[in-house]
């Protein structure tokens, strides 16, 4: 187990804690996007390029996008 794997695992654990600790959904979407990139780095270090590619496009782009659009609908209100 080399140092790179240890560092990224600890970063992922910290990132998960940050995502849960951020209570405002708008900020949490950004933190979740960053957490997705950390996960993709971990998958890459664990020699899984396919899964890393999936996680980057989905966890860093598609999911925060849909969260932001939902928040825009919810916060926009019935104007």
């Amino acid at each position, binding site marked *: 187990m080399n140092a790179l794997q240890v560092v990224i695992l600890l970063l992922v654990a910290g990132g998960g804690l940050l995502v849960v600790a951020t*209570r405002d959904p708008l900020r949490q979407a950004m933190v979740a996007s960053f*957490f997705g990139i950390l996960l993709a780095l971990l998958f890459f270090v664990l020699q899984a390029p396919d*899964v890393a590619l*999936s*996680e980057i496009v989905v966890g860093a782009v*598609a999911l925060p996008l*849909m969260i932001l659009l*939902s928040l825009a609908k*919810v916060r926009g209100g019935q104007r």
Partner: protein
Amino acid sequence: MTFLPYAVAAWLFVIGLYGIVTSRDLVHQIICLSVVQSSTYVLLLAIGFRTGGAAPIFIDIPVGRAAVDPVVQALCLTDVVVGATVSALLLAIAVQIHKRTGSLDPERLRESFG
């Protein structure tokens, strides 16, 4: 130290559950659910890892070279995309709940739906 990946998987699972249980906002709960899902990816990929193994793509390395497990990668691969789509479904439900009841707070919703 070789136990660290499994510990991180268990930690992510428990911390995601804590976020769901103590949440005040439906959208926050949905994002914590994605954290719980990611714990399963970490666990699966950690099980399949082999020290010194390469990625199981044999286009530029000879076939006999030690590689990591491809079966768990195949499981995680489709799961990532499908999990995000199910989260989209949950977000759609949350948006419609907000339209009907005006709030996204699980505490208040519990009273209104009985």
